[in-house]
């Protein structure tokens, strides 16, 4: 057992060199690698923590917004309900107005129909009365309707002769208006009757299809007439007495 001091010195140098070599090629790379990995892991964890905090913040914001939306929901429902009620009222009002307009239109149409019906009634009644009258006069008195009308008018203005003269004043012409032309005999008789009362007055005949059958004599401001209108009115009054419950009831139901 001996110690070779040269070998001892060489082994010390060898050992120190080995310390440097292992520090350079083993410990430093390994420890640096571990440190780098730890730093990387720490960084990733930091990023993950940041991402988690961000996600939590987003979740909190989302929950806040959700709660705000839920709290506003009742107000929105009330608002929508109010708006719907207004819309409903407006639609009902519009429908009511349209219904009223339609009812008014219907009422106007009905009145027009009534007027048309009454006019038709007048015409038909007039024709019927005229026809019946003509037939009755012919059968019973062998006379014509026009003769009787002229006679009736003559009697009337003869009964008011004084008033007629005053009313005629300076008028030199009297006008006899009929719906259809008068027969010649009737015209001559009317002329003769007027000449008896007012010799200087001329008589002019004219026709008016719009006039009721009969005769209207106008002189100045005076008018003497006989038409079947009064009879037609009487007929209508009678019909009104017979028909009113039905027609008036219908009219009332339509008004509703």
């Amino acid at each position: 057992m001996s110690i070779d001091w040269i070998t001892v010195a060489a082994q010390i140098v060898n050992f120190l060199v080995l310390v440097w070599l292992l520090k350079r090629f083993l410990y430093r790379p390994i420890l640096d690698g571990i440190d780098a990995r730890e730093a990387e892991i720490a960084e990733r964890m930091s990023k993950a923590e940041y991402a988690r905090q961000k996600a939590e913040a987003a979740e909190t914001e989302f929950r806040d917004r959700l709660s705000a939306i839920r709290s506003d929901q009742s107000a929105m429902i009330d608002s929508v309900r109010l708006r719907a009620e207004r819309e409903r009222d407006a639609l009902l009002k519009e429908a009511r107005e349209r219904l009223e307009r339609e009812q008014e239109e219907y009422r106007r149409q009905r009145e027009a129909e009534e007027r048309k019906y009454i006019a038709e009634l007048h015409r038909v009644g007039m024709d019927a009365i005229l026809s019946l009258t003509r037939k009755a006069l012919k059968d019973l008195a062998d006379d014509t309707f026009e003769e009787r009308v002229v006679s009736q008018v003559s009697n009337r203005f003869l009964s008011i002769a004084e008033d007629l003269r005053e009313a005629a004043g300076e008028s030199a012409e009297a006008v006899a208006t009929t719906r259809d032309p008068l027969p010649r005999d009737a015209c001559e008789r009317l002329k003769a009757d007027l000449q008896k009362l007012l010799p200087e007055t001329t008589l002019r005949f004219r026709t008016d299809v719009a006039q009721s059958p009969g005769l209207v004599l106008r002189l100045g401001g005076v008018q003497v007439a006989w038409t079947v209108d009064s009879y037609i009115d009487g007929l209508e009054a009678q019909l009104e007495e017979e028909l009113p419950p039905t027609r008036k009831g219908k009219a009332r139901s339509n008004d509703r």
Partner: protein
Amino acid sequence: MELTPDSTIVFVAWSIPVNATIFHTWIIMALLTGISILITRNLRPDKPPNRWRTMLEVIVQGIQGQIAEVARRPAPRLIYFVGTLFLFIVTSNLLMVVPGFHPPTASLSTTVGLTLSVLAAVPLFGIASRGLRGYLKSYLEPSAIMLPFNIISEFSRGVSLAIRLYGNIMSGAVIAAILLSVAPFFFPVVMDLLGLLTGLIQAYIFAILATVYISSATSDPSTPENAREIQ
């Protein structure tokens, strides 16, 4: 029979004889450095660690953990010295089973050299940690009377370190050689297996004792933690 490889001259370079102890030390140095370079040459943070790198990390972190456990505090610079001691001794002891390899740790010159390195490292680490005044003051503790005993204690530590390692490894090699001549087929295998275990334990003991000596020199007894330990 030669008890030390110091007397075996392997070759002469520039009229300087290189004995087996130095030559096999160079082999161990080349082996450790080469393996380290091979494993750590492609070491990059963006590449996942392979099994070799993981093995080295386990070894390095194991040494670091043992040092921290013995020193009772993190001592990052100590791993370069103590770790190299452990790796050198354990590699030398394990290569003992290779035929024709003379473990440098079986040479008293190597163990003395390593011990002298430890004896030099103790004051160096102590002065670096506590300062020159603080380190020298530790020789006067607990009183100035203890100064010669502390100095003797330091030297006896070194002697025990050197003799322990040398004696164990040398005796293992000698016993294996004797048994090889007596019963060449069975006993040498058993003794070699036992020698591997012994070599591993001796490397561990040497490194741990070096850590204890250095950490005791670097620890400040005035700190509460170390004061409790002293009590």
